[in-house]
């Protein structure tokens, strides 16, 4: 088996490739001429925890926190995923040994990285063989139920990283502002938003509609196929497709927000995992994070257009899709 390892070193990770025609930004890899979604084909995911704690967090607390984060993802009713804690290990989280390890690691060189996920992928199938997660001990951590002022909530960050471990890339469902030292999150409606909430808060412990749609899209079960639907179409500007536009579907009834991207040169997008019923569509440029947090740097992502709404209410059928939507944007 030909294997390829890749270490991803942003807050969480940069996708190898974004998968076209996906409902959500998912991790992908090239298999021949095709781009396939990264996913685990062997479940449960068996993982070890590094038997090493950090200030304020023991390895046992780390293990319990990680297990809790796995359980949160596994509770999604539209996805079929499972995991199994195998045991503590003295090995640190490092790629290439064929074993999935989650643990603390001191990486003061990564001064803006709370944690990261790396993969070993079977490049003939796209199947994930191994994934490792490290939490950077250069930052202060907390496992307190209520959170601790000035400390980052380990469960929130573990939930985000485990989302990557399952194959999810970043969501753009959030707003940021530029400040000295980088971007700060004003608000987010997805655990998979690339920038974490401030230290001291536990707001990131709860999966949002966007996360749930994403995990269901990769590991769909019969509930997902039967009970959710999709919206597909194109984002165009002056008749040309727009690549990398962020399209948001808002369910007026449930007030849930689910996003997707136009992932091809013709501006095609698909947002799947939506609850049936009427939705409002809104498109915006990818301007609340570094482009590289979402897409390969070589892609020509268009951010020169204004945010705008679609003038039709789009009704999502149960177990089906509504297609043919065209979002025409104009340059700023």
């Amino acid at each position, binding site marked *: 088996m030909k294997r390829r390892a890749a270490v991803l070193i942003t807050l969480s990770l940069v996708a190898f490739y974004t998968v076209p025609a996906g409902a959500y930004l998912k991790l992908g890899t090239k298999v021949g001429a095709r781009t396939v979604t990264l996913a685990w084909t062997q479940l449960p995911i068996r993982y070890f925890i590094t038997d090493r704690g950090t200030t304020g967090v023991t390895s046992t607390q780390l293990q319990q926190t990680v297990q809790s984060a796995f359980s949160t993802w596994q509770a999604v009713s539209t996805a079929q995923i499972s995991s199994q804690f195998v045991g503590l290990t003295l090995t640190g989280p490092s790629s290439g040994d064929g074993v999935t390890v989650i643990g603390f690691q001191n990486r003061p060189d990564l001064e803006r990285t709370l944690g990261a996920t790396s993969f070993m992928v079977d490049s003939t199938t796209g199947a994930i063989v191994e994934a490792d997660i490290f939490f950077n001990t250069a930052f202060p951590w907390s496992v307190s139920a209520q959170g601790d002022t000035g400390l980052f909530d380990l469960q929130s960050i573990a939930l985000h990283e485990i989302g990557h471990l399952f194959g999810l890339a970043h969501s753009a469902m959030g707003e940021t502002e530029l400040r000295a030292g980088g971007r700060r*999150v004003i608000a*987010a409606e997805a655990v998979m938003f690339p920038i974490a909430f401030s230290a001291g808060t536990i707001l990131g412990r709860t999966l949002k509609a966007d996360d749930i749609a994403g995990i269901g899209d990769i590991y769909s079960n019969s509930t997902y196929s039967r009970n959710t639907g999709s919206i597909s179409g194109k984002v165009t500007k002056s008749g040309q497709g727009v690549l990398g536009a962020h399209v*948001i579907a808002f369910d007026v009834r449930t007030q849930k927000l689910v996003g997707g991207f136009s992932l091809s040169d013709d501006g095609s997008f698909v947002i799947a995992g939506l609850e049936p019923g009427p939705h409002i569509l809104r498109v915006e440029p990818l301007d609340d994070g570094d482009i590289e947090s979402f897409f390969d740097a070589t892609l020509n992502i268009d951010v020169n257009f204004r945010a705008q709404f679609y003038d039709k209410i789009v009704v999502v059928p149960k177990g089906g899709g*509504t297609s043919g939507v065209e979002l025409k944007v104009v340059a700023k």
Partner: protein
Amino acid sequence: MIRPTITTRAARLLGTFCIVAGAAAVPRPAAAQVYIGRDIPHRGNIEISGGAVWLGGYDLGSAAAEETRNTGTGTGPFVLFDTSSKTDPSVGLQGRLGVYATKSVSVEGGVLVAWPSVSTRLTGDAESASDLTATETLTRVIVDGSVLFHFTGASFGGGRGVPFILGGAGYLRDAHEKNEVIETGHEFHIGGGLHYWFGQGKHRFGIRADGGISWRQGGADSAETTRTVPMAAGSIAYLF
């Protein structure tokens, strides 16, 4: 005015009426007798009507697209944009089939089809997207049943005009555009109106106007709230 010829069946009806009237011991004005005879719709008569209907619009409420706000960046959820939805007034077609159980009481079933527009006003975008109204058109079908009480004593125009009141319930079915999504609900209604018959023969045409209020739940409106919808209709009727 009493018509000179009375059929055997009409005579039976007359007798029945007299017994009831006598039992009630209510003196009745002579004018009321114009409806006592073969020309008044009576038990067994069937009425078919069809025409246009107007349905009032109603508010579907407001909702905000919110994101979870980070600590230290303000209070309350971050509002990405606001929405306010309503169903606009609409016109449609209605058909009814009724049977008279007595001269005063009839039951009927009907089908109504209308095409209301649902609109959602989008405002207050956090990134200055222009305000806009997004719309869609529903195909609304209501299948209902009603009981009508005809005020034969309050007729006018030589017995041709007969006011009535009605009440009933119905099944509501909303199909969104392209009929890809169907949502159902129910409704209850009350109302009143007027028949005006042309002629007094066994078979006759007439017109019917009625209005009322429908209280409905479900359909394209998923809220638990009961919506109050005014209705008005005008129909051509045929009695036989």
